[in-house]
């Protein structure tokens, strides 16, 4: 089974801190995604990547950046954390973008609280 591992399940940070959320997948998937989940708002796409060193903005990229230096690793960076970035962050990967039913495999999530 494909495994998507998010390094931290729970984090508590202070306003203004720089925050790194790490995600690693072990099945040589091309595509990687970062979502945040908030009650009543569902899953909102922050950034995604189809290849190493490649990134594209999703629907809510403001306040975030990403890094994909290796195929298996996709990092989400909050340059200066704010309280409105308190959320559940979900990393996902999928095999490639040419297959039809592009099933995403999600990690277990990282619950971030910004005080």
């Amino acid at each position, binding site marked *: 089974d494909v495994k998507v591992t998010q390094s931290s399940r729970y984090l508590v940070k202070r306003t203004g801190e720089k925050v790194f959320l790490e995600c690693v997948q072990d099945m040589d998937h091309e595509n990687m995604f970062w*979502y945040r989940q908030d009650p*009543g708002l569902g*899953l*909102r796409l922050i950034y995604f990547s189809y290849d190493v060193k490649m990134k594209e903005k999703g629907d809510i990229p403001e306040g975030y950046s990403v890094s994909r230096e290796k195929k298996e690793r996709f990092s989400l960076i909050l340059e200066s954390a704010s309280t409105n970035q308190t959320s559940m962050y*979900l990393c996902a990967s999928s095999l490639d973008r*040419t297959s039809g039913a592009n*099933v995403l*495999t*999600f990690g277990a*999530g990282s619950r971030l609280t910004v005080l």
Partner: protein
Amino acid sequence: DQQVKQNSPSLSVQEGRISILNCDYTNSMFDYFLWYKKYPAEGPTFLISISSIKDKNEDGRFTVFLNKSAKHLSLHIVPSQPGDSAVYFCAALKSRGSTLGRLYFGRGTQLTVWP
């Protein structure tokens, strides 16, 4: 603007009865539709998908129906079980174009199955 909509934030069903979760979409370019299930403190897991060239796909207790003319799909769970209690997300995919591989999610429906 939301391209995938789940208008019922919650649904409560008795064990053994049918659960019907609904989803509407606006973009006629979507050609695959997927359902994900999410338990608290876990990442979403893939449940079932359907191609736009079909109108029904069945997998055990789960059946997805697609009505392209109405831009509507539904997930039927029969019989419902308490372990089905989770948030269900509808998602849609365009398999052609620059956003290849990106899923568009609805806001989710919380299903509660009571004994």
